[in-house]
């Protein structure tokens, strides 16, 4: 049986079929959670972010202008929730630190990835500023074009290219201990 497209499911929800949203949750929760984990560096925070984003999406579904692009619209909400969480966290304490010595003493963000390649990359990602981390993840993990990134973030293409470049430089320095300049 062919899966119903997102746009059809959104229309069904707005027409009163509440179960149709469950299909959207089932389809999109895992990729949104993965983005949130990489962005926030913490599974519990990522879970909160994704739960909150889906509830906001459900409440505001009538504002989803292009129903066929529900995934992109939802991603934007998840990104906003991540930014809000990181800003709040930044006010509370400096969770991600750029200082190498402090970084070395910082425990890995996810227990299951400690000591693995993924764990090392996650820790290095955690040293980037949120806007560099966001640009890097959208480009290289989500494999979006710069035009798609510009639409999602509201930033210009050249600014995004610069963020990705800086993110690569800093990650390379953290992971390989070398500079390109």
């Amino acid at each position, binding site marked *: 049986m062919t899966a119903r497209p997102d746009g059809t499911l959104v229309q069904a929800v707005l027409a009163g079929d509440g179960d149709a949203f469950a299909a959207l949750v089932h389809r999109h929760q895992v990729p949104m*959670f993965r983005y949130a*984990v990489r962005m926030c560096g913490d599974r*519990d925070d990522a879970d909160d972010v994704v739960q909150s984003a889906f509830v906001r999406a459900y409440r505001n579904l009538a504002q989803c202008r292009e129903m066929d692009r529900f995934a992109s619209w939802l991603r934007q909400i998840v990104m*906003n929730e991540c930014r809000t969480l990181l800003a709040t966290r930044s006010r509370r304490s400096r969770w991600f630190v750029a200082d190498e010595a402090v970084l070395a003493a910082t425990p890995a963000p996810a227990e299951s990835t400690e000591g693995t390649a*993924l764990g090392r990359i996650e820790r290095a990602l955690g040293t980037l500023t949120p806007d560099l981390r966001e640009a*890097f993840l959208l*480009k*290289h*993990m989500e494999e979006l074009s710069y035009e798609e990134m510009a639409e999602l973030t*509201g930033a210009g293409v050249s600014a995004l290219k610069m963020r990705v470049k800086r993110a690569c430089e800093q990650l390379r320095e953290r992971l390989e201990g070398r500079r390109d300049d």
Partner: protein
Amino acid sequence: MTDRIERDDEGFGARLGATLRASEPLPTGAEARLLATLAATPRPSRPVPWWRRPRTIHLSPIGGLALAAGFAGLMVLGTLGASRGAAPAVAAAAPDTVHLVRFVLVNPGARQVALAGDFNGWQAEALTPTASGGVWSVALPLRAGRYEYAFVVDGERWLADPALPSTRDEFGGEHSVLHLGVDRVM
């Protein structure tokens, strides 16, 4: 040299991206918890525009005359607004007056144009083209207040009205902002 560094960055980023795409299993019970929260959340629906909701209006004879006078006057202003181009015609009136606002978009290349805003629950309503083509318009009765809206061209391209200030909503969309009230004349 710069090209080589960019290619290096591209390859380096792609390698990291491939590792980062490793599956990240949801916490136990996360989907069930979310569905339970959603079940307790009011269901979303297409909002019904205020002028389509059933309602009873009580007017004194003097109030009724004032409302009728305000409505007729603004219809004339709406016609004038259409000849000006893109801006909707709006005039000053008493706060409880119903304004007939004509929204106009000049776009000869469009196959269809619709209007969506907070006054109609963001459900696009089709605009009628003029006989000569290229000018699309619709007249809506609106009460005084602040409204956000955008034109939808060919069912997919959202355009803020170039004649008015615009704002971005929390989901990144650009809307025009229309102040319809007693102290603004456009």
